[in-house]
């Protein structure tokens, strides 16, 4: 990856992390852990990978993105705002009365949101429908969806994978945010979903792995997925839940808890310090 692009992406991801903390703190609720773990992937998607146009959010031939793990929408709301879909000034209204920024993605009111999601396991099916619609229409757009590693415990996810492979949806790219933690504890203890790639391969998908915090690795995985013909692809993204805020990293308690004022100050201080190195 070109060094300037990488530097810019790091800055974008960093802004997304600041926005996540800002939103969740302002809402006094939300899901910082899984939002922070996908910040780099979401930055890459919205600033490099996705063929979208903020001026025409409903453009027919745009690439689609479905956040199947809808609770981590602060990351996507930030990316959409910073990409120009709406004014970043409204980000702190997240989860507030009267705000378009609902607790989970709402396609009816948020420019750039392609599918309402949040009930786990459902977004991937909608993504399959979008990919199939492209095939039926002869359209060339691609569809991306991010799932949680806990989310894939839902049976519907595997129904959708069977469907995607059956219909050879090679325009569909599934990303599993493999941060290893879910609400009640480590995924391996709550309901072990591993090995993910092996299962997906058995379902007929092409699988890839990436370091979800390394832009070279992210770029390589997405590029490889794009080359696949005749089958959908699934990328296992190795990530750290809470990535970027020291006291949130790998802490199950930060799945769905907002930082208090003191924690907010500390998190923002850390992120501002980190920004100096970018």
């Amino acid at each position: 990856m070109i060094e300037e692009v990488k530097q810019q992406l790091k800055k974008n991801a960093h802004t997304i992390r600041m926005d996540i903390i800002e939103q969740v703190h302002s809402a006094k609720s939300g899901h910082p852990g899984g939002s922070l773990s996908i910040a780099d992937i979401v930055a890459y998607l919205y600033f490099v990978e996705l063929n979208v146009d903020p001026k025409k959010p409903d453009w027919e031939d745009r690439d689609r993105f479905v956040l199947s793990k809808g609770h981590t929408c602060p990351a996507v709301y930030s990316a959409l705002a910073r990409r120009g879909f709406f004014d970043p000034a409204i980000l702190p209204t997240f989860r507030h009365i009267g705000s378009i920024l609902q607790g989970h993605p709402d396609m009816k009111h948020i420019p750039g949101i392609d599918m309402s999601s949040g009930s786990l396991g459902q977004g991937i099916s909608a993504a399959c429908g979008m990919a199939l619609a492209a095939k039926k229409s002869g359209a060339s757009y691609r569809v991306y969806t991010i799932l949680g590693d806990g989310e894939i415990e839902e049976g519907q996810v595997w129904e959708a994978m069977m469907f995607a492979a059956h219909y050879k949806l090679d325009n569909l790219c599934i990303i599993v945010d493999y941060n290893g933690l879910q609400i009640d504890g480590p995924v391996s203890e709550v309901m072990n979903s591993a090995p993910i790639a092996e299962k997906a391969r058995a379902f007929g998908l092409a699988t890839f792995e990436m370091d979800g915090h390394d832009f070279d690795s992210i770029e390589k995985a997405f590029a490889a997925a794009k080359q696949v013909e005749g089958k959908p692809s699934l990328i296992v993204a190795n990530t750290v839940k809470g990535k970027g805020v020291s006291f949130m990293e790998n802490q199950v308690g930060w799945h769905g808890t907002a930082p208090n004022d003191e924690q907010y100050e500390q998190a923002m201080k850390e992120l501002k310090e980190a920004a100096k190195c970018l």
Partner: protein
Amino acid sequence: MSLKEATRESYGKALVEFAEEYDLYVMDADLAAATKTGVFKKAYPDRFIECGIAEGNMMGVAAGMAASGKTVFASTFAMFAAGRAYEQVRNSIGYPHLNVKIGATHAGISVGEDGATHQCNEDIALMRTIPGMVVLNPADPVEARLCVKAAIEHKGPVYLRFGRMAVDTIFDEKYQFEIGKGVVLKDGKDVAIIATGLMVARALEAAELLKNEGIDAAVINMASIKPLDNDLVRKYAAQCRAIVTTEEHSIIGGLGSAVCELICEQGNCPVVRHGVEDRFGKSGPAPALLDLFELNAEGIAEKARYAVSLKK
């Protein structure tokens, strides 16, 4: 007038008929032979999407197709469309108000021999609680076809309820259907029988029975359960001062409940609900089951007599 046909048959035929004019896609979950979407599959193989036995995923895929501009019919039995996939219908189709039509067949007791596991008497209740969902329950082959057309022309989610058992044609080619409108089939002054689905034909028979007893019953066909024709229901509440609702569905949550919810705010008009009591179905031939569950003219007439006795 003599054609006897299950509304699921009419559904399959209508899909084929309207696919010429409209760019429809039809999905099924391994029941195309039974839901009669199989005839569409044969006529338009490129626009038919087999989803396998995975109804939850089918509803989500339908949502994604609709979000990409397609008009989609997702078909399976009422039990699995409204029951198993309730939450997918609510969150992936209802909440984003996507243009998905749910073609649910094998509703109610008249499924017959398959018995309780496949006899869905709760689907109207489930579907009408979803904001923005239109719920249609046609009475005969003519109305079933018109409901499919109305669903296509309506922008937004629609739940269509069809039956397995062949039913008589009661409407002629001049019959018109409109979402949100009930149709007065027979006027009357003593009691208004508001019927839906295959109970409409039985309600007309019940009105004949009642006539012989000196009770002048009005019969209203309410295929559009949501939106309900509030004006018409209110008008007949005022005119007859007694209402009987009849449906091949649980007396909890269906047409009867919808009418009660409206009329309880008006007062001075008893509403007696006729339908499947709070119990599960059973195996047996459909006509015999309908009698066993008193889903017949005499069952309606009995409720009508009771409704009349409550007046004053």
